[in-house]
């Protein structure tokens, strides 16, 4: 196999940068919807790394893995957004700092 022009390392590095940005979003933002979007960003960066390694090892199985991750992400988004909508109905806010009913 010819050496690909863009090295796998570069894709994995990009994936690491995106993952870091996503984790920063989860930690810094207090809006529940934005936290959710950051989680999506992290899932996507993991997918990117999977696809990069799939090319590296010439294994299509990782593509299946990405497909499954996308499906799980879709289910997770649906349930998560439903939770946010329900919380918004009672609290009139999506700020996670307002949700301290279980605080000790």
């Amino acid at each position, binding site marked *: 196999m010819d*050496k690909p*022009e863009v090295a796998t*390392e570069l894709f994995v*590095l990009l994936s690491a940068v995106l993952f870091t940005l996503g984790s920063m979003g989860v930690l810094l933002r207090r809006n529940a*919807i934005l936290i959710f979007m950051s989680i999506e960003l992290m899932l*996507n960066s993991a*997918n990117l790394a999977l696809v990069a390694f799939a090319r*590296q090892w010439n294994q299509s199985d990782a593509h299946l893995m990405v497909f499954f991750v996308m499906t799980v992400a879709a*289910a997770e988004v649906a349930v998560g957004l439903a939770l946010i909508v329900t919380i918004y109905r009672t609290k009139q*806010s999506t700020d996670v700092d307002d949700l301290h009913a279980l605080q000790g």
Partner: protein
Amino acid sequence: MVGTELALFIMIGALSILAAVMMLISENAVHSALFLIVNFACVAFMYLMLNAPFLFAVQITVYAGAIMVLFLFVIMLMGAERVLPQETQRFPWLAPATLGVTMALLFVAGLAIIQSDIDTSEPEPADPIFRFVHAVAGADAVDVYIDGEKVVSDLIYREASDFEDFPAGSYTAQVVPHESELVPENIVLETSVFLAGNGVISYVLTADTANGGVQALQVEGRIDPNDEKDFARLTVVHAIPCAAGTTSCPIEVADITEPGKDPQVLVKSLEYGQATHFEVKEGEYTLAAYAQGDVRAAIDERGDTDEKLNLDALVQVEEKVIDQNTGVLWVVTQDTTGGIVRPKILWFALDNNPDFGSAEGIGQLLFTDYLLPFEVIGLLLLTAMVGVIVLTKQHETPKKERFRRRMANVPGNPTVEEYVQSMRKNAADSSGD
């Protein structure tokens, strides 16, 4: 000098990082969602660069399409796009701490990636795949056993079995007539086969005139789907047994696509039982197989149905389009239909593996090796759907019940029934007066 692909990667990668940062710092949740869509589109483009066209389509339709529409829908439905001004003021140390921790994470991850030498490591060889091609003219259908396990059933003349994959190693292959027991007296051919990693092997069953039996010719070939080539590889197998009493009956294969031009001989002196391969550019070809040295006769008798075995060995593959970067297996064998023995070319794709990352390849994996996980995921989606409906359902209490509860909640108050009864009694009393 930066290549086109690398330049594209740098541009799209920078755009995806920029979109992610903008998503993080946007004041408006709708803007954040739109920036996230840009980021997803960039990642989809990366999938395209990584030979994953199916995932590219799924990323655009499912992620950037369905999921982000759901996000925007919820944001706009709740009117929650405005961000509260006192956000993140509760813990003033949180922002610098987060920055420090995530940057440390990125540094460690980057160091690990750069030091890991991913690009220089070699992948494990894939399991070899193999198949059997039945080229014994006039013989009945056969079954093939590998180490006692039936892998090919009812293989008839001129057909090739599907590719099977086995771990690399040595095996014993046994060929028996179709639907007969695997006992020594039934075995037509027993041969040991060695399957090496990454191999794509076709075993062509041909008649063995020397020993009066069947023999298996091993034809190897692998076209690396990632290795873009502008030619196709043709493998030719000579499977016409020599006439009785002769030991040498070589054939040639020539390109006679253009009748006016001199034929271009592609394969010279291919003996019975031998296989060879050559490379051609993509295009339409008319190829002729004929007894060695008979190229003029072959062209002169083009299309002639001469019964002599060696002379009419002319088989035209009309308008056979050969795509680039593919492999083709040709078995030159005999056609005995109608009592006339004529040469016949069997045409098979050498490697029918779908392209890496194509929808076909993913579908094949999904419905073979990953059927159970696929169904579990489907079940998960169904459960999630039911869960969402349950979560967002408004629990409306019936009016009457609510009224009764309120009446009963105050200690000493009568319940609804008592209240109604007392009202009725009052009414009756007053009318009685």
